[in-house]
Each structure stands twice: as C-alpha cells, then as structure tokens.
C-alpha cells in the first residue's frame, strides 16, 4: 500500500466518522445528564431535510447549517417536554421521536427530492495540509469537519474540567442530591437534550450539505442507532466516543478498499467488520481502564422534583 492510499483512507475515515461523532457526542451529553434519547435517527433526518431546504431556498450554506442546528434542537424539544416534563417513558418517547422524525422529514422534503445544490467545499489549511499521511485527513476537510474537532475539544474540556460538566454529571448520577443542592435538574436536562438535538441536526446538515449534497428520504441510513451504540461501548467517555466513531469509520472504509484490492473475503463478512472492530476495541479499553461504574446511574429514569 502506498502512502497515497493510506492518506486517502485516512481522509475518507474522518469524513465518514464525522456524522457519527457529532451524533454520538450529543447523545453522550444528554445521557450523562440521565436522559436516554432514542430519537437520534429522527433528529438527524429532520436536521438533514431542514438544512437542505434552508440552503436550497436561500442559496446560503451558512443558513443551511443554521437551519439544521436549529431544527434539530427544536425537534428534540418535543422529546424534552414529553419525557422530562410529562415524565413519560424515555424509551418509548425516543422511539416515537424517530418514527415521527422519519415521517416528518419525508413530508417536508417531498418537493426537494431530485434537486441538487453545490455542497460545502473543502478548505485546506495552508501548510498543515501538506503534512505527509495525516495532513489531508485533518487539514484538508470542510468547515463542518473542523467544527466537529472543535466541538469535541470543547465538550472534552467542559465535561472534565468545568463546573458545568460537573453539574451535568451530578444530575445524571443522582438527580435527587443535585436538586437538594439547589441545581435545577429539569432545566439541565432540557439543555442537554436540546444540545443533543442540535448536534444530531448538525450531523444531518453534514450529510445533506457536505457529504452528499442532496435530500433523499432515510438518508441517515441507521447512523443514529450506530451512534447510540457507540456511546454505550465508549462507556460515556468523550475521548472513547471519538475513538469509536473514527474506528467504525475506518473499518467501513477498509471494507471498501480491501474489496478493491481483490481480497477474497465475503462482502457480508467485511460488512460486519466495522461493528466487530469497534466493539472489540472499546470493550478492551473498558477492561484495561477497569471502569467500575459504566452508565450514569439515573440513566433513563424520569425525575420528579420534590418541592
């Protein structure tokens, strides 16, 4: 394998991993505060269709991205009201959100099937993108990919180094105690859920504006579910979410590249590779780190504040 091929594989890996990373980071934040939102797939689709409509009608990709973000956040508000304020089952509400989002995006997008826009261009960073092997992967991408790096760094910092991160984790571990210490549990949960919605919406915008600049129904093709699983296998750690998302992407790209080299491996087996590799790697990391406690303790449980 030449350097050139490795360079291209890494480039494609980052591109493929970006939507997964965005969704998984958003889902992780809301799960850290104790809310399990299975509506990711629906939120991605709503974000994707709104981003496309926004960009198509105004001719501005920036407005497209903003519509993706905003629609994802607004759409997740439905979940927040039902699951947090009305304390219904998070699982059922999340599933309903996915079903609703799939239908709603199809409905909104009816007139936009078959239309094409000029997608987001790559923005190579001078000098840096010439670095051999990794330059192209990390410094010759589009703005949304750079955005995903920045968001990762910000989330990593907030969750491990700041008071805000501590409050989110406290709410997820023991909402009763957090409440008695004067934190507004429901408000925190609303915020994390809407943040997750915005991240899923951004992932949708990435799909419909940058990766494949078009709208077709169901274009997220299960990425929301993969992201949810990644969060679990990454045991709710920001760094591992990144490793998991990129590793999954790497294995999916390898699947395509290996075929091209004529290796006689069944495509079904190769198709399993991303799932297997990611699960094995993350489980091994979990073992090594001896992570005693995995899930946030109140994950999936509704909370009624005691007056």
């Amino acid at each position, binding site marked *: 394998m030449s350097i050139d091929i490795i360079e291209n594989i890494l480039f494609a890996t980052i591109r*493929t991993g970006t939507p997964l990373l965005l969704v998984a980071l958003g889902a992780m934040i809301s799960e850290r505060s104790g809310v399990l939102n299975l509506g990711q797939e629906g939120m991605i689709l709503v974000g994707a269709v709104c981003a496309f409509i926004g960009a198509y009608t105004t001719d501005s990709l920036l407005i497209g991205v903003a519509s993706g973000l905003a629609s994802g956040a607004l759409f997740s508000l439905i979940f927040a009201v039902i699951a947090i304020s009305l304390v219904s089952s998070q699982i059922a509400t999340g*599933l309903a959100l*996915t079903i609703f989002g799939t239908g709603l995006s*199809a409905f909104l997008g*009816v007139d936009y099937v*078959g239309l*094409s826009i000029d997608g987001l261009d790559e923005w190579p960073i001078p000098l840096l993108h010439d670095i051999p092997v990794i330059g192209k992967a990390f410094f010759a991408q589009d703005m949304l990919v750079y955005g995903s790096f920045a968001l990762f760094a910000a989330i990593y910092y907030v969750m491990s180094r700041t008071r805000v991160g501590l409050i989110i984790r406290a709410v997820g571990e023991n909402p009763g105690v957090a409440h008695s210490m004067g934190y507004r549990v429901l408000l925190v949960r609303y915020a994390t859920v809407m943040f997750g919605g915005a991240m899923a919406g951004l992932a949708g915008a990435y799909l419909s504006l940058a990766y494949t600049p078009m709208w*077709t129904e169901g*274009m997220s*093709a299960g990425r929301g579910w993969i992201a949810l699983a990644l969060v679990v296998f990454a045991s709710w750690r920001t760094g591992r979410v990144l490793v998991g998302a990129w590793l999954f992407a790497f294995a999916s790209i390898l699947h395509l590249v290996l075929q091209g080299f004529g290796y006689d491996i069944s495509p079904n087996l190769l198709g399993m590779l991303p799932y297997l590799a990611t699960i094995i790697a993350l489980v091994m990391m979990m073992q090594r780190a001896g992570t005693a406690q995995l899930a946030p303790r109140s994950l999936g449980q509704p909370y009624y504040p005691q007056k």
Partner: protein
Amino acid sequence: MKAPTLISLGLAAALFWSAPLQAEDAPLKVGFVYVSPIGDAGWTYMHDRARQIVDKEFGDRVETNYVESVSEGSDSQRVIRNLSANGHDLIFTTSFGYMNPTIRVAQRFPNVRYEHATGYKTAENVGNYQARAYQGRYLAGMAAGAMTETDTIGYVAGFPIPEVLRGINAFTLGVREVNPDASVRVSWINSWHDPAKERESASSLIRQDADVLTMHADSPAVVQAAQDEGVYGIGYNSNMESYGPDAHLTSVMMHWEPIYREKIQAVLDGSWESKSIWYGLSEGVVKMAPMHPDIPESVTERISKHRNAIINGDREVFQGPVRNQDGEEIIAEGESLSDGQLLEINWYVEGIKGKLPN
C-alpha cells in the same frame, strides 16, 4: 434496525383501522408495496411515479394506495395481508424479497390478484413482472467504454443477486463491445439505500483509477461523486443529470407505467391471468436519458444502432460468444441465454476485475 420495522407496523395498523366500507360500484382498489421511501430518488421513486401516472389515467375507475419502507420478510407479509384484507383487488409488490410473502398471502386470498416484481415464482393469482434493465445497461456500457481513458470503470452495487449480476455483466459486455481493453471493477456496499456509503464507495473506485462510474443502488450519490471528483457517471432508475451536469453520460431509466397500465386494464376487463412478463426497451419500460455531448457522434450512432437491433430482435445482449471471467466460453457463437438462464446468472463475464462473492 428497529425504525423501519416500527414504521411499517404503524402503517400496517393504520391501514387496518382505516378499512373502509365497500360501496356498490366502488373503484378497483390497487395496492402497492414499496421497499424504500418514495423519496429515495431511485427505485421506489420510479415505481411511485408510475403509480401516480396510471392513477391519473384511470381516474375514478381506480383507487391506488401504497405502503412505503416495508422491509422484506415477515413484515411485508403482514402489510400484504392487510392490504388484501381491506378490499384491494390487485396488489403490486415491488421488491425481490417480497416474493415468498406474496405467494403465501395469495393462497389465503384467492380472489385478490397479485403482481410481484423481479422474482421468479408465480401462482394461480400471482403473476410477475420484470424490466430488462440489462438492455439499457448494455447501451450505457458502450458509452462508458468509449469515454474511459484509464480503461477502468467503477460499478457500485448493492447485493450480489442475479438481477444485479445481470446488469453488471450486460454493462461489461457493452464496455468491451467498444473497448476490449477496458475492465470493470465492482464495489459491493451491502445496502440499497445509504447515500453516504454509495458516495464513499465511488470515491474509493476513483482512487483505484476508475474514470467512469455507475451503480446499482438507489440514490444519485455516485453521479454526484463523479461530478465532484471530475470523472464521468452513469445514472440508474431516473435521469440523474441534475446531480452531475458535467459528469452525467446517460442514465438507464425505469418506466413502470406501461406494465401497471396493462395489468390494471386487464383486471378491469376481467382478462387478467397469471403471467410472467419481462419488458424492456421495446415496450418503453427501459429508456435511456439523453447522451452527454462529449460522447463522439460515431459512438452515439453505434449505440442507437444496437438499441434498434435489440428492439427489433436482431440481437440479444447476451449473445455468443461470451466468456466468463476464467476465459471459458459460456455462450457459444450463435447462441444466446434464455430468460430462464438470465434469471439465474451467478457468474461474471470476462472483463470484470475481482472475484464474485458467494
């Protein structure tokens, strides 16, 4: 994946509850079952376009309904059963995987007529219909063979079933007809509808030297990738020119309305019987989109000559001598494949790189 299952469950339930009372001279109720969403810009999109056309043509005499995103297998059986139970007279099931469910449901509803697409089983009240897309693939392959400079053409494909292999083989025969040095590389993505994966697969083929791309998957992502990376692309199902104005050589378009018109008319006339029909260029079920202006006139003339020969029955796509990948002669000079053999294709013709997955 849970989502499509739940959606179709929901839809099935909705259909069940909305079962209307049958009026005296009610219109003929025609149901359609689709495997992907109607907005997929590909396979299902074209089936639904055809449904809308015939729905309009028949006006009050026909009422059409559809259920989309129905996964193959037991889910589809439930959907087909519900459509049958609430008064549909004719049901089109439009994906290969609906074959057994259709046959099973049909046994319990002898008065309902079924038409299954792309399968091979029939029953007293089940017919099947197919499109000879491979005829269009062959012509598209000629365009690809003429335009490639690297002599490598990329083909993004969903699953290795006969329908797909037939297309790949026909395409390759077309390529080699005009350019015996060129070869076709196939990339399997294990999905009918995953635009991002289709795009990535296209990029991967371009990196392996392909400078013309085509696909057997639902979305226009491959044509878009071709446009983006400055190579040529060939669309499938619908005219995909808008996704790659500079890249788009042509598209193999599927127009199902002649079949739907004929079958609905037959039921209305009371002349319907279980048949296997396989329509192609001659019946207007398979059509070619306008050719790219870059294609030399000598080539487009040659393509239309072959097109006419296929329509007139003067030549077959799979006409000997045809060799397989190992160089063995599979179809002898002067012979051609029967429809039965075409339905069972499980080998690659000469000129395809890489092994056929089993």
